[in-house]
Structure formats: C-alpha cells, structure tokens
C-alpha cells in the first residue's frame, strides 16, 4: 500500500496554487461560477467556495483540508457555465456525471491539480483525544500536520491522518481536466484497487457481521447527508427513501429501514460509485457507510473487470450484457 509521493515541499504547493488561481482568473470571465475551497470556521476545516468575482479567487485554498467532492454541485447547476476544481477522485465523479449525461461537457471547465491526499477528520479527532472543538492553530506540510488545541501542540504524521482512500489512491491527478496546475504525480489505474478491509470484514461470522451493522445503524438519524453528499445520488428530490409509492421504507425510527436504505444506496451506485467517500465523511454520527459501496465495487470489478469514473464513453456493466458471461457461473441444480 501507500502512494509513493513526489517529494515536493510546501513551496511547490504554494506554486501550483498560484498557477491554479491564474488559470481560474483566466477562465472566470466566461463562467458563471467556479467552485473550489476556502477556509472555514476553524483552522482545521475548509468549506466549498463559490467564486463569482475576481476577488473571490484570492480566498481559494488548496490543502489536505479540501475534502469535499465538489462534483456533487454540478447537476444542480446544469445550464450554467461552471468551473470546478477537482482532486483526482473528484474528477472521476465528473466522468460519471458526463457518462450519464447529467452534465454537459461544454458547460463545465475542469481545473486539476496534483493531489497528495486529504485528511480524515475522524482520525485527527482520535489523535487529539476525541476533541477538535478548540483548534487554535493548524499548519500542514507534506509529511506532518501541526495542530495547537487547548494550549497543547500536536505534530501528527500526515500519512496516518490521510483518508483511507488517499493512502491507497491510484488517481492522484484529475483523469479529465481543461487546466492542470503543477506537476502531475502519475495515475496508476492499472493497479488493483485495495479491498483488504472489506475482505477482513467478510471473514467475520454471520452474526458478527449482521450484529455489527445493527449496532452501527442504530444511531443513524436518517438525515440522508450520506445521500445528499453523494455526487451520484442524482434523483435528489425524488429519492426512494421518501417515496410513499413505492413504499420502500417506513418513517418509523427503526434499524431495519436504516440498514435497508444503505443497501438501496449501494445498489443504486453499482457500477457508478467512484468511492470518493463523501457518504461516510458527511455522516454526522460517523457510521462507516462506505464499506457497502466498496463491496459492490469489488464485485463489479471481479465480475465485469470494470471501474467507474475513468472513461466518459464507457457503458456501465449493469446497463449491458453478454450472451455468455465469462465470470458468472450459474448454479447447477
């Protein structure tokens, strides 16, 4: 595991960020809005940043805090000329949206940059003893995050604070872009995706697995942040979760419907999910909801040798078939 990173230092980060800003400055006059990131309520958080005027560009900040997948906003802005800053993983969502004709290529301007990974806030929280409510200072380099919280200074190894998807990332550079600021790191799509965590979980006994999900989903509040943060949950206001006819789910607060919804989400993403992890990141009660989607992707890979979000022209496997399926062995009775 692990992504051999370019030994660029902070200076390079600043350099490509300036280049990126120049790119946006050039393109903005033709665009309604460019979406990037900027600082948020404390030094440890960033927030999506909608740039409409030139002066908005100054606030743009690219850092390991740029966690949000901004592709989520694209279908809602259809019809507008939109610029979007993408990490490698985010760009794969853009590819999916293009593939599904949910956005028009000519309306979208994509700004790429070499992504060295984003943090997992829960990991930082754990490293800080379960509390990130009083962050006074935060600075990051390639190798460490320095945080001051409640008069205590922490120096955390960046590699350990990165989101899981980043430590096994195979697409650090945008797979599709109109502008690319900085030096590409190099994508490695031909390497196998890492599903070790899924496999470990599958080795548990049936009651252990079933019980695990019941326990985890018990605290679900059905806010559907997982769904709304998902760039590929494109039904938006017409989701099966709230439909009365068909009546997939009840409104009762019960663990069955919460679990069922996650299966619905995973299945509706079969062959579409790019594992950007927004569902899990958005969950306000930290339920590990990404694993269902990883499992689905693993099955799609094993059965159809297909990976979503790489080729805008590809046909997703569940929208096609072969008379003879090489990797499906039917049961003999």
């Amino acid at each position: 595991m692990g992504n051999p990173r370019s030994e660029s230092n902070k200076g390079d980060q600043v350099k490509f960020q300036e280049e990126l800003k120049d790119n946006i400055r050039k393109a903005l006059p033709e665009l309604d809005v460019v979406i990037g990131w900027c600082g948020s309520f404390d030094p440890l958080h960033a927030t999506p940043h909608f740039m409409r005027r030139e002066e908005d560009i100054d606030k743009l900040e690219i850092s390991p805090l740029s966690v949000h997948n901004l592709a989520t906003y694209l279908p809602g802005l259809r019809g507008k000329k939109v610029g979007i800053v993408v990490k490698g993983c985010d760009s794969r969502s853009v590819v999916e949206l293009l593939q599904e004709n949910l956005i028009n290529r000519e309306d979208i301007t994509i700004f790429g940059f070499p992504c060295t990974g984003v943090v997992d806030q829960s990991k930082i929280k754990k490293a800080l003893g379960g509390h990130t409510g009083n962050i006074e200072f935060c600075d990051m380099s390639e190798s460490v995050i320095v945080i001051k919280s409640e008069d205590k200074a922490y120096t955390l190894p960046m590699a350990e604070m990165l989101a899981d998807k980043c430590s096994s990332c195979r697409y650090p550079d945008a797979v599709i872009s109109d502008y690319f600021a900085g030096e590409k790191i190099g994508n490695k799509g031909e390497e196998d995706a890492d599903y070790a965590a899924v496999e470990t979980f599958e080795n548990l006994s049936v009651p252990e697995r079933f019980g695990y999900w019941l326990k985890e989903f018990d605290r679900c509040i059905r806010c559907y942040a997982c769904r709304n943060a998902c760039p590929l949950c494109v039904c938006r206001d017409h989701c099966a979760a709230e439909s009365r006819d068909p009546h997939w789910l009840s409104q009762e607060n019960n663990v069955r419907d919460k679990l069922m919804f996650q299966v619905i989400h995973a299945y509706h993403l079969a062959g579409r999910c790019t594992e950007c992890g927004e569902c899990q990141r958005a969950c306000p009660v930290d339920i590990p909801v990404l694993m269902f989607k990883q499992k689905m992707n693993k099955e799609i890979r094993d059965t159809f040798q297909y990976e979503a979000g790489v080729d805008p022209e590809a046909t997703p496997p569940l929208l096609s078939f072969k008379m003879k399926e090489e990797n499906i062995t039917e049961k003999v009775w």
Partner: protein
Amino acid sequence: MPVLTGKELRIVGFLCNWCSYGGADTAGIGRFNQPTDLRIIKVPCSGRIDPLFVVKALMNGADGVLVSGCHPRDCHYAEGNFYARRRLEIMHNFLPIIGYEPERFEYTWVSASEGQRWQQVVTSFTEQIHKLGPAPKILGPEASDTLSLMQAAL
C-alpha cells in the same frame, strides 16, 4: 405435504410469468411432490426483479429467496433475463457484507415445460435453506431488541 421434516421456513419465490410460473404450474399438474415452504410471487419477467426485492424480503423475515426466469435466449422480452443475470449475480455476491449467507438467495432458469426441473429446483433450494436454518432476523426498531437476543442465542 412437506417433503422435509421439521418446521417450515419462509422462502419467497419471484417467478416470471412466461416460463417459470408455467414450469411451477406444470409441476403442480404433474403432481410432483414439492416442499411447501415456498411462497410464489408472479412477475412479468426476471428483468422486472429489482435485486433490492431480495434484500427487502430477507429483512422482512424471509429465510430464503428464489428467482426464476426463462432460460437465456428464451426471454419473452428477448433480453430481460440477460440483464437480470448480471444484476442478480451481483446481489448474490453482495449479500455476505450485510450478514446474510449468499446461499439464501439463488436465481435460476426454468421453462414452462420443465415441471421436473422445477421440482428439482424447489426441493434442492428448500433443502439448502433448511441446512442454513432461519435467517438472521431484525426483531424490533432498536438494535438492542435484536442484539440482546442474538447474544443470548450465541
């Protein structure tokens, strides 16, 4: 008349209208002995089966789910079962992550004339489910309703 001794389990069968439902009918007319755990729901085509039906059935108390359609190349709608095969195969393999044995769900093809094959499929699937025993059940709105009983059973 249950072929299998012991308590009946709940098996839900989704059968396509054109082949498998006919096959089951043929088995019935031929008076082939079959276990009675299966409850059949007729659908227009195996391509009509949303694989989520399978999970919904299991979560609502089924111990096994069987889908049966026309043989490949024999679909009344030409290619419904080809799409179904891909979807159902994926769901079959997905089940373990939730905590269901994949063997609780099978899909197969039975034509309207294959009464004998239908008997074979039902009997063998029913045996398979009985071997697994009852599926994990969700017993109340809160996780603790189920977990406390699961722990007691372990």
